[in-house]
């Protein structure tokens, strides 16, 4: 059975920290090992060099004054203690002088080098106690069968190197331990922040859209994740809100015509009605249901447009012919309602979009103008290059206009100003225009129209300004 590891151990952060700690420990161990090898090797080399130098001195004495000179030199050097260990050995193997009790029981290598251990009383200690000390020496025959043995005690250096090795091992162990510890700390911190985001996600999944992932403002990747996550939640909440709104609006706007229709039919079914009145009721019900279907179709169109499917089929076109066609379609309508109709079309502009949607937006703008302008007004359809070079399509009327405070509201779905509730129509005309403007990245402006000429209202100017086509 594998025991379940603490949760932080399973985190990516912990594993990554552990990996980096291990790599760091390995590399520091390698560096220290190199330092150790270099310094230990250097100490050995230095010892050898000292011994070689000392041999050179001994050989000079031998050349100057023979074996006696060497003997004297050794005696001089060993009186009162020396850093060197000496032995002078005659051809028979007898020790002539020196500060060692005898040749160590080690066979020298081909060049005469040998490592050995000897006993020495600690300084100031006259007792029999002896320290075992490590030393290195060389045995060389200097001439006439005489051999000289010169050694150097490197017990102190050896101990130093030993301490160094221990320090290296301890340091490596410390690095690993610290690595693990920081892994724990970092991963706990990291997983705490991730946990916070996960908790928010779980709450949202549960249906509550209000919580937001915490941000610490550092701008690091987790902070950015939180920020994006929150932006996504904002969008979700907005969509949910909009959907609820639409639901409410549908209920609000459809309930009364549906109720009306139902009542009419119930009434017609009740005994007592004439054949004629039943027929009239049915006809009215048909008209009502057509109007309801119109509302549904408009809702569907808006949703489709807002989903942005059409964007893929966008193309570049000159809107002028479409505007002329639409003007031609609506001119008689305007004139029959007693309005004067004016059209100004600038050619050579280019917009990127969907021709059919563009035409539909114009039709809705004109419908709106015709519907709300009292008889005898003026309606103008205009396509022009705006001051900053963008294509602008606008419809201006001389109707009652829309109070500034309400202008934003009327392009929301289903909003019809109270005054116009008894007018036919889905109340979605301008919402559709707004959706079309949005999908084209166009700006929709509602402004005061030409002004109250000859007792007309202030009028309304609806303009759709398309983004510059680069």
């Amino acid at each position: 059975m594998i025991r379940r590891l603490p949760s932080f151990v399973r985190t990516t952060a912990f594993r990554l920290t552990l990996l980096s700690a291990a790599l760091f420990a390995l590399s520091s161990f390698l560096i220290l090992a190199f330092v150790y090898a270099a310094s230990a090797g250097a100490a050995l080399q230095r010892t050898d060099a000292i011994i070689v130098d000392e041999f050179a001195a001994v050989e000079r004495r031998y050349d100057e004054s023979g074996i006696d000179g060497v003997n004297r030199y050794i005696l001089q050097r060993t009186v009162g203690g020396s850093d060197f260990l000496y032995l002078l050995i005659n051809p028979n193997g007898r020790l002539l002088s020196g500060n060692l009790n005898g040749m160590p029981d080690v066979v020298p290598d081909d060049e005469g080098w040998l490592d050995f251990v000897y006993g020495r009383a600690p300084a100031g200690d006259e007792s029999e106690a002896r320290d075992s000390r490590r030393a290195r020496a060389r045995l060389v025959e200097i001439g006439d069968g005489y051999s000289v043995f010169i050694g150097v005690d490197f017990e102190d250096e050896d101990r130093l190197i030993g301490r160094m090795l221990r320090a290296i091992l301890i340091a490596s162990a410390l690095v690993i331990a610290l690595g693990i510890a920081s892994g724990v700390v970092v991963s706990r911190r990291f997983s705490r922040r991730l946990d916070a985001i996960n908790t928010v996600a779980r709450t949202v999944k549960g249906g509550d859209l209000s919580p937001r992932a915490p941000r610490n403002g550092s701008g690091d990747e987790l902070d950015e994740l939180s920020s994006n996550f929150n932006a996504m939640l904002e969008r979700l909440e907005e969509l949910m809100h909009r959907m609820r709104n639409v639901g409410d609006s549908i209920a609000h706007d459809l309930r009364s015509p549906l109720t009306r229709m139902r009542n009419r039919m119930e009434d017609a079914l009740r005994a007592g009605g004439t054949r004629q009145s039943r027929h009239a009721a049915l006809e009215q019900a048909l008209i009502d249901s057509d109007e309801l279907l119109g509302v549904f179709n408009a809702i569907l169109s808006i949703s489709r447009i807002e989903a942005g499917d059409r964007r893929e089929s966008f193309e570049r076109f000159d809107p002028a012919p479409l505007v002329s066609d639409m003007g031609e379609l609506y001119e008689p309508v305007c004139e029959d309602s007693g309005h004067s109709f004016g059209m100004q079309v600038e050619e050579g502009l280019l917009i990127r979009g969907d021709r059919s949607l563009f035409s539909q937006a114009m039709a809705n703008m004109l419908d709106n103008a015709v519907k709300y302008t009292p008889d005898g007004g003026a309606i103008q359809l205009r396509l022009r290059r705006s001051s900053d070079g963008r294509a602008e399509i606008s419809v201006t009327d001389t109707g009652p206009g829309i109070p500034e405070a309400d202008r934003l509201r009327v392009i929301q779905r289903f909003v019809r100003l109270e005054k116009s509730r008894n007018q036919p129509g889905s109340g979605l005309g301008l919402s559709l225009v707004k959706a079309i403007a949005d999908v084209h990245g166009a700006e929709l402006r509602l402004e005061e129209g030409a002004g109250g000429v000859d007792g007309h209202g202030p009028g309304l100017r609806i303009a759709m300004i398309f983004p510059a086509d680069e």
Partner: protein
Amino acid sequence: MRILIIEDDREAANYIRKGLKECGHVVDHAVDGEEGLAMSRSAEYDILVVDRMLPKLDGLSVIESLRDEGVSSPVLILSALGEVDHRVEGLKAGGDDYLVKPYAFAELLARVEALARRRDPEVVRTKLVVGDLEMDLLARTVVRGGEDILLQPREFRLLEFLMKHSGQVVTRTMLLEKVWDYHFDPQTNVIDVHISRLRSKIDKPFDEALLHTVRGAGYRLQA
């Protein structure tokens, strides 16, 4: 006329069937794409009315198969999908007209009859005549009772469509689609206004009216 309806919604199918029978047509009904395909292979129909979304084999595949086999009967597609792209797909598959649900029966009937007319062996006509109204498609002139009538280009096209479908009901939506090429319904009665303008030119100065309003459906040009 012999008409085949391929529609899985039985109630909708019965509604169309009843209406078309009352107008004197012989109507058969298939409930899914496979049955529809089999039926249209086994008998010759003057018109096919095909729902776009069908069980087993979808409407567009049925139409494509029939066209591949050389069946040329006009097809009216019924669909809840009304976007321009959907229409284009339907017509590409071999449909001749596209009607978006929900529709009024009058609309369906008008379109079925318009499609049936298209089937008639059509010589390239350069002259259309309805009563004493004559249209010369080459010279682009209109004369009634020997009097020249001056029409705007769009009025000419509107009249041309009405004359080509003389004796039949054409709906407002049909006119908006075929004469103006718009596939949405304006909320104001733009078509009515254009018809009344046309009427004032071709009917008003004369004793007999040719352009009739068909209540609840549309218009009919008839001598």
